[in-house]
């Protein structure tokens, strides 16, 4: 009897292990180098440590990216953002960073529209990934946008929801429905800041 009882206990443990075994892990998206650097600068500014923020900005990929994308950004954005950090102007820094991330998201929306035009039968996953990337950048500055341009923040959320539901509706992209939403996102983001 003892042997059988021990066996039952063993099987209960093994069975429980086996039942929960077939999983493949949960992926939690990470920040990229630019968004990590943005958070460093932002939190340093919020803590009033402008010297730390300036050092992070000078040495980080955020500034490098601003320089690399200078042609598609408002003239002098990188210099203005740096000057705001030196002047301990938190609002100026926030505006500079907001403008930069809106530009990144806008460029992604334009690129998505461009790629969907080139490949109308693209899988929905392609549009979904563009949408995720746009939201990842926009979401970083949504609070700043909503304080400065509340109607833009609302319009952006509505446009995102519309694009998201269009992407989820079918396995293949409905370009007639999706391309206008990406164009609208690009337009909304361009209006939110003096972008080129």
């Amino acid at each position, binding site marked *: 009897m003892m042997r059988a009882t021990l066996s039952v206990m063993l099987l209960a443990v093994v069975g429980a292990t086996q039942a929960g*075994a077939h999983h493949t*892990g949960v992926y939690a998206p990470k920040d990229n180098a630019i968004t990590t650097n943005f958070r460093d600068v932002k939190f340093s500014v919020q803590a009033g440590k402008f010297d730390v923020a300036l050092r992070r900005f000078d040495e980080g990929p955020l500034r490098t990216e601003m320089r690399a994308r200078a042609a598609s950004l408002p003239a002098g954005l990188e210099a203005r953002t740096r000057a705001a950090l030196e002047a301990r102007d938190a609002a100026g820094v926030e505006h500079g960073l907001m403008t930069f991330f809106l530009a990144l998201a806008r460029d992604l929306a334009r690129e998505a529209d461009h790629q969907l035009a080139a490949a109308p039968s693209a899988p929905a996953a392609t549009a979904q990934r563009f949408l995720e990337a746009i939201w990842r950048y926009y979401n970083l500055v949504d609070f700043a946008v909503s304080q400065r341009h509340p109607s833009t923040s609302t319009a952006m959320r509505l446009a995102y929801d519309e694009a998201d539901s269009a992407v989820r509706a079918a396995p293949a992209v409905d370009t007639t429905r999706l391309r206008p939403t990406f164009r609208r996102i690009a337009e909304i983001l361009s209006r939110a800041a003096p972008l080129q």
Partner: protein
Amino acid sequence: MTGTNEEVWHLPPRAVLLAAILLLLAAEVGGASMGRYKLELARWARAEMQARPAVHGLVGVRDVDERILDEAIFRVDAGLRLFHMHAEGMALVIIATTTVAVTLARRAATRRALLLLLTLGGIGYPLGYLLWSVLIPTLGIERGKALAERLLWLPFGGATILGLAWLSALIAVRMARR
């Protein structure tokens, strides 16, 4: 351990023990290699995926592609970790359950069938995770998973579950008879 007394545990056959030990060894070697060659594995996976942009849905935009590559590399690593974990666990499960099977199953045919199900199932199931990891860079996350499921997880996991259910029923019958 192999006396005639009814209350004595019996050892499983040597081949079963050897298979379990080899699986344990593979788990340890896999775990050590995963730590030692983490960077090389990630580089290999990234290069393979970048060579197959259509398979992974890469669009040529860094902000979009980085996330796709990052997730796939995470899955490759997760597959290797899960192989390490499951192979370690299943090796011990094989030893424990086959010990119960050879001790309680009186009929030779039942004993043989249980040993086969529990041993093969226990060895094949963890290898599914290894196969999935290897397939991700060439086939993608979902297609790799579907293939690993069809080839290893379902048949071998099914064999283990069937073996465990059979063994449970056997124990229940033995307890009820007492």
